[in-house]
């Protein structure tokens, strides 16, 4: 199994999550090793975002065990969880309209040593440099997505939770995000990627978890992707 290695960075076992009275996640087990890129695939409403929110402590209530680098986080407040070295890029991107681009970029505080410098980030995202004094939400969708990613690279977080980063973006931008995600993996980031775009996901990921009705229904390794077309088809309808 994948959750036995000593280098497991994140592990969920028996996680149940609730929004008010609604029971959304049922007995989720998954784990991610250091340096791995793992996807969460599944139809709209399957519970992928809720898994990321559960990791961050942003759901109404959760039970079970979620460990980050061996530390139990189920009872920690959200800001303490983030400080363990997690960078969260939410589905709705969360660019602040009352902050300009650079303020958005500088907002997340350092959580660990070794984050990228502002110069390195501008090097990687020249558009953001050009538009650093614009209001954050005036950027194009693609630029906002870049900004949402860039700002968590500064903080030293080593585990990135990326929620549907390609959603609604033009093909060339999706390609750029693909290259970026590959670069981040090479730099040693550990990544959980929520995706609807299966081709995008298949290119970069080491493993795929398929989520359905708040449950993990399949786990497929990169090497088995080709032979699992039927499984993907059944669950994702691709």
């Amino acid at each position, binding site marked *: 199994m994948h959750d036995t290695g000593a280098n497991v960075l994140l592990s969920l076992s028996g996680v149940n999550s609730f929004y008010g009275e609604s029971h959304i996640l049922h007995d989720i087990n998954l784990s991610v090793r250091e340096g791995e890129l793992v996807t969460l695939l599944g139809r709209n409403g399957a519970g992928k975002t809720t898994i990321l929110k559960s990791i961050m402590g942003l759901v109404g209530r959760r039970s079970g065990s979620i460990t980050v680098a061996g530390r139990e986080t189920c009872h920690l407040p*959200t*800001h303490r969880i983030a400080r363990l070295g997690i960078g*969260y890029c*939410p589905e709705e991107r969360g660019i*602040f309209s*009352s*902050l300009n681009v650079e303020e958005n970029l500088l*907002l997340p505080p350092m*959580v660990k040593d070794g984050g990228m410098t502002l110069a390195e980030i501008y090097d990687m995202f020249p558009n953001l440099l050009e538009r650093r004094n614009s209001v954050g939400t005036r950027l194009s969708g693609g630029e906002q997505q870049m900004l949402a990613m860039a700002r968590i690279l500064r903080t030293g977080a080593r585990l990135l939770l990326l929620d549907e980063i390609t959603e609604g973006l033009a093909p060339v931008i999706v390609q750029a995000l693909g290259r970026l995600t590959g670069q981040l993996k090479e730099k040693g980031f550990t990544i959980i990627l929520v995706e609807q775009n299966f081709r995008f996901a298949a290119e970069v990921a080491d493993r795929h978890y398929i989520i359905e009705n708040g449950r993990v229904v399949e786990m497929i390794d990169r090497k088995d992707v080709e032979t699992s077309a039927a499984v993907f088809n059944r669950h994702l309808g691709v």
Partner: protein
Amino acid sequence: MDVTFQTVMSQLMLGLNNGAFYAVLSLGLAVIFGLLNIINFAHGALYMLGAFVALLGYTELGPLLGMPEFHLNYWAALIVAPLVVGGIGIILERTMLRRLYRVDHLYGLLLTFGVALIFQGIFTNYFNVSGTPYDGKPELLNGVVNLGFMMFPTYRLWSIVVSLTICFGTWFMIERTRLGSYLRAGTENPHLVQAFGINVPLMVTLTYGYGVGLAAFAGVVAAPIYSVSPVMGAEMIITVFAVVVIGGMGSIMGAIVTGLALGMVEGLTKVIYPPASSTVIFFMMVLVLLVKPAGLFGKEQ
């Protein structure tokens, strides 16, 4: 009535003085509303409390400590009162307001209104409702200054200057500093800000403390001008709420500018048609609500 340059200017200056108080108070309300989503009805009572800290610090603290000669002087009160009242605010937030963030605005309003009535009731029990004069005004701020176009009481000039300094200092802090960017971001999306590792609950508590500390500060500055009374806040807060409605809850600068402008409008009305001076703000409130329901600086939602 004989409308001379002199009378217009002096009413404008007095209006500016009142407006400076409106500005400090509505600024605090706007900051609190932004982050806590609570309409802080206790604001007036905490302003009153600030004035009482100055008054009691001056008259009662010495005897209480067995040192009849000791007076908490005005300058010290400017610092102590915001700290004391800010501390009370922090306790209020931690023990009561915190429980209401998930529910409708209305609950926060009712709770803070209740708190205001309690403070006001307690003080009404022990102090004269028609006011007790504050004798701690420093020597330095006695007398009048020549503004060129008129003579103006030094203390009132000081109170305008110090209030504006506090207002623009707060504006600067919120709009131009790192700390302020946390606050602005927290106003927009507190969950995400917390997911970045910022202790948002602590920030919320301190923001409430700061907001009510501002009210206490205004209370101390007001003490030598208006006499200190248990109902001074209740009277003030009604006007300040009208200011906030006119300016719109969303904007820091809006709160400041609207406060100052409406103080001056009130002053001018005293020259033009005195009977309307106490209602002109409410008249304007109705007009603004009809034309721009979110307020002059507010964002439509």
